[in-house]
Each structure stands twice: as structure tokens, then as C-alpha cells.
């Protein structure tokens, strides 16, 4: 029997402002199964970022349990959390967070540095992941020599390199223009078609429309959990038709 990728039971997170206690998350129960493509939605202050930090093992819950791939991470030590982040989660950030003056290949290899993967396999794995994001011809380029969309694709390849159980993308298109956004979302959809679980945090309904399921947060509560009504579906070819080739650089 396969474990859910994520299961949260009654998680709460408190922030203290002077003598006031603010519940950023107040009793969230969620289950995300392997192969899902989930958008986490909500305005700022809704608790969606806090939720992402909890399931991304970046921050500790105040109450409740978080299970990642069957591991109860809410009771883990910082070192164990680091291992879970390394093995189970692939992060994609709004600002790409690539190492400057470092080649795409070395950027993709970065998570391997903290894993148990034998060094002989690094190059092959990095190349395979760069191939999956169609950047096989840009392996030696540094971030400054790549467009925004290409940089985000390097970041996605980096997220894939340790074969995580999910990709956790925090506003991945926030710094991209419309056509590049479509290109990146098409890539996510394609990865999802091939079995990768994707969790996407966004405040834009247009972006969330690419996901299969949408969780909507408001004031620390989960107010809606529904399948996407009119799902936008693009494959890579469609996206590249829309994309102005000049913008790809």
C-alpha cells in the first residue's frame, strides 16, 4: 500500500506578537496522494505560505502532525529534517535561487552534495534532469547567461535530481512574464503526467488553473478543497507555439 505523499492532522502554527498570539494556521487536515498536482491558494496572510513551510519541513508546527511519505516529520530534529528535505522534497522558488557564477550543471548537482549518492553518478543524473527540462544544450551556462525561464528550468532540474516524492513550488512564476509562465506551467504538467507529485503555492488563479486540485486558505483555515473546474492543459509544444522565440534568448 502506498503512503500519501503528505498527510497533515490538525496542524496549528502560532506566532507571538507581544502578548498576542496569532494563529497563522488553525487546524489543517490534508492528504495529498502520489501523482497529484495541487495548487495551494489564498491571499497573503491566509496561511498558505505557512502551510508550505510546514509540509516543506522548513519550519516546525506548534500542534498537530505532519507526515511526509509516511514519516512523522513534526517530531524530527533539524538534521533529520534536512535529510527529509534532501531526499523527499524538490524545492522551486520564485527567485530561482541559483548559485551565481556557477554552471547550470553544478547548480543541478548541488542537492547531490548533501545526499548519499555516489559521486560517479552525479554527472549522469544532472544531465538526465537537465534533459527533462530541455536544457541539454545549456549545461555550461551560468545563471547570468540564461533567461528567466531557463533559470527556472535549471531550478526545476535541481529539484528533480534527487528523485523526490514531490516538487514544492513557491510562486514559481512570480518573477516571469506571461508566455514564460505558460512554458513553465506546461513543463510542470508534463512532469506530472510522468508521475511527479507537484504542489504549487500561488496567489494567481490563472496559474492555479493548471493544477488538478486546488486548496484555498483564508485566515489560517482551509476553506476550499476542490478539483479544478476548467483545467488549462498545455503540452510543451503548445507552450512553445505561444512563446515568442525571441524571449527565450
Amino acid at each position, binding site marked *: 500500500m502506498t503512503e500519501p505523499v503528505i498527510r497533515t492532522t490538525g496542524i496549528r502554527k502560532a506566532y507571538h506578537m507581544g502578548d498576542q498570539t496569532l494563529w497563522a494556521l488553525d487546524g489543517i487536515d490534508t492528504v495529498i496522494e502520489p501523482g497529484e498536482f495541487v495548487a495551494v491558494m489564498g491571499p497573503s496572510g491566509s496561511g498558505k505560505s505557512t502551510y508550505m513551510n510546514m509540509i516543506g519541513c*522548513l519550519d516546525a508546527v506548534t500542534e498537530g502532525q505532519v507526515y511526509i511519505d509516511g514519516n512523522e516529520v513534526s517530531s524530527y530534529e533539524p538534521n533529520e529534517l*534536512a535529510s527529509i528535505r534532501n*531526499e523527499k522534497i524538490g524545492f522551486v*522558488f520564485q527567485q530561482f535561487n541559483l548559485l551565481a557564477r556557477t554552471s547550470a550543471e553544478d547548480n543541478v548537482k548541488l542537492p547531490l*552534495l*548533501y*545526499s548519499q549518492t555516489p559521486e560517479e553518478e552525479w554527472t549522469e543524473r544532472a544531465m538526465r534532469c537537465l534533459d527533462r527540462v530541455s536544457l541539454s544544450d545549456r549545461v555550461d551556462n551560468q545563471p547570468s547567461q540564461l533567461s528567466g525561464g531557463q533559470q527556472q528550468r535549471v531550478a526545476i532540474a535541481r529539484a528533480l535530481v534527487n528523485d523526490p516524492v514531490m516538487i514544492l513550488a513557491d510562486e514559481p512564476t512570480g518573477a516571469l512574464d506571461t508566455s514564460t509562465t505558460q512554458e513553465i506551467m506546461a513543463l510542470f504538467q508534463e512532469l506530472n503526467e510522468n508521475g511527479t507529485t507537484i504542489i504549487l503555492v500561488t496567489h494567481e488563479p490563472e496559474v492555479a488553473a493548471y493544477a488538478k486540485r486546488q486548496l484555498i486558505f483564508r485566515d489560517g483555515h482551509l476553506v476550499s478543497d476542490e478539483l479544478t473546474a476548467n483545467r488549462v492543459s498545455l503540452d510543451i509544444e503548445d507552450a512553445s507555439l505561444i512563446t515568442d522565440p525571441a524571449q527565450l534568448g
Partner: protein
Amino acid sequence: MNIFKLFKIALTALSLNVMRSILTMLGIIIGVSAVIIMVAIGAGAQQEVDAQLEAMGSNVLMIFGGWNNRGGGGTAAVATLQDKYAQMMIDELYGIEAATPYVSGRAQIIFGNLNWSADVLGTTNDFFVTKNWNLLEGREFTAAEMNSGERVALIGTIIRDELFGASNPIGQSIRVGTFNATVIGVLEEKGPDARGSDQDDVVVMPLKTVRNKVTGINRNNPNSVSYLEVKGSDTVSMTYLEEEIDNLLRQVMKVAPDAERDPFRILDQAERIESRAETQAIFNTLLAAVASVSLIVGGIGIMNIMMVSVTERTREIGLRMAIGAKPDDILNQFLVEAITLCGVGGLIGVGIAYGVTYVMETYFDMVTLINPEIVLISIGFSALIGVFFGYYPALKASKLQPIDALRYE
């Protein structure tokens, strides 16, 4: 994570900021090279002193005639000592291995058409003991030669080189001032004495020969000598011997108990050299201490830059943590960066120290001595400084919360 990976990461990170890395290392480079150079100068001076002491022989006292103040402020030995005092000391005092009288002068030495001015020393075979000297070739004086003041000579290596070159000097006749003498031996090389004058630039002849034919006989004191040397045995202290000799000479020379000054002076050359060396050593230690302060200052520079680097790379730290770096991985990464900065700085410092001491030896004629231990200690110490001053910034980096680090603007 293994140490090689860590060093690779550190080198990569440092090579991304070459200029800054070099400037950061500068403090360590200067500190390490300064310490090594100072210690090398000290060790060189010590080596010179040791060589001088070695050449002089240990437990040797020199006895000069009384000092006379001259009008110009200079002083000159007055011929108040006699050659018989040497034997007298051996007979009367305990703990004397040898006592040697010397008459010294200067003469023009001529061989063939070659001409050389040298010190001429008249003495007995005992000088081999008191001056701790040996023959390179040839033979000592015979008793007969000493008694009758024969014209035989032992020559220093400089005289041999200047007058004879590669040919064999033994049995040759040289002209010493106004007379001819036969070379019967060559003294082994001894190097400069404590005052820096070369002891190999010498012709040694029987005492009588020199007194009669080079310096001339002092009418007031026909048995006068320039100075005496006494070698004490290892079982007596030099202070004791000095006192004993002082008492004996006062008696023999009939010095009034209330005399303002003695007509002789006893000098412990080794002691003088040693006390001068001690002063020098204190001075060198002081310089090395000042130099090591610059090492510490260099370490603080490293700490400063590491703090800046941690702040500047907060997002990188956040990212590394997000993709699986443990707090210890981050700690080690920055620690190894600091150690690498210091270690490489230390190596460059060692290189510079070697360069500078080479220049000092070659162009400024200074004796320096770089101890391999000092080199290892300096590199080890600078790496230690890396650990010490790198630890706080590294700890600060590792204590960052991934979520805060990622959001850092």
C-alpha cells in the same frame, strides 16, 4: 560530508571572489612571513654565536695587561704580563687544563712575488688547547724550536690560499717582515672571531721568535707577553677560576690592596658573547611577539570578512539548507573556508619568508636560519587562527533558520 568535498566547495567559493580572498589573506600572509623571518634572523644570530663559541673553545679566560687611558679616549694594553705567569698558574691553581702566553704583532708576509699583511702570533704548543685549534697538515713546534726561537711557522688557511694557492706550502720558505721562516704546518679553518676579524689570517711562530724578531723586546719587561689564555677543566666554575687567577696575579704582581685598578684584566669571552646573544635573543623574541600580533590582527580580518560573507550569502545558506544541508554542513563549509583562507595565506607567507631571507643572505650578508618546525608551526597556527576566528561566523551561519535565510533580502 567528506573533507575533500568541503575543501572543494571552499575553494570554489573563494575563487568566485579572488580579489577579496587575497586581500583577506594579506593579514595572515604578512603575519606568518614576519614571524618566520624574525625567528629566522634570531636563529641565524644564535647559530653565529654558537659557531663563535665552538671556535673559541669553552671554559677559556683571557688575561690582558693593564689598561691605560690615553688622551684620545682610546685604551691600550700595557705590557705588564710575563710568560712565566702561565706556568705559575698551572702550578699554583687547581682546575687548569692549559695556560698559554701570546705575543702578537703584525708583519708583511712575502712568498715569491706575492705580498700579504697578516697577524703574527708568538706562542707555545698549548695554544692548540686554549684556542681549540687543530692542524690541517704538517706538525707542531718541537721543544727545541720553542726554546731557541727557531724560524718556523704555522700558517692559517687564508695565508695559504693567498700565497700558495693550490701548491703545497709545507717546507717552503716565506719572508716574515725582516727574516725568512720555514712553513711547517697549516692550521684548520676557524672563521671570524667574536669581533668579526678573521682568525685564519695568521702566522703562528714560537713565542721567542716573535718577541725577538717581530715585536721587539720591551726593555722594561723583557719577558712581557700581549695576553694569556687559560683553559679551565670542566669540573671548575669559571667564576671560581677567575677569582683564583685574580688573587694569584695580584700577589705575584704585588698589587696594593687599596689599588684603584688592577694592572691586568680577566675576560670571559664566552660569557660576553653569551650575554650579548641573550640580549639579542630577548630583542628577537620581542620582534617575533610583535609579528605574531599581526597574525592575530590578520585573524580578526578573516573573521570580519567571514561575517560579511555569511550575511551576503544568507540566501545561498537558506537554499543549501532547503535542499538538504544540515546545520553542521553549513558550519563546516564556512569553517573550512576560513581555514583554507588562513592555510593558503600561511603557505604564501612561508614562501615570502623564504624569499626575503634569501635576499637578506645574498644581498645583505645576514645569517638567517629557517627551522622546518617553525614553518610547520606557523602554518598550523594560522590554520588554528582560521578555526578560532572562523568558528563564530560559521556558527552564526549554521544557526540560521532555513525559512528566514530563504526570505532574506
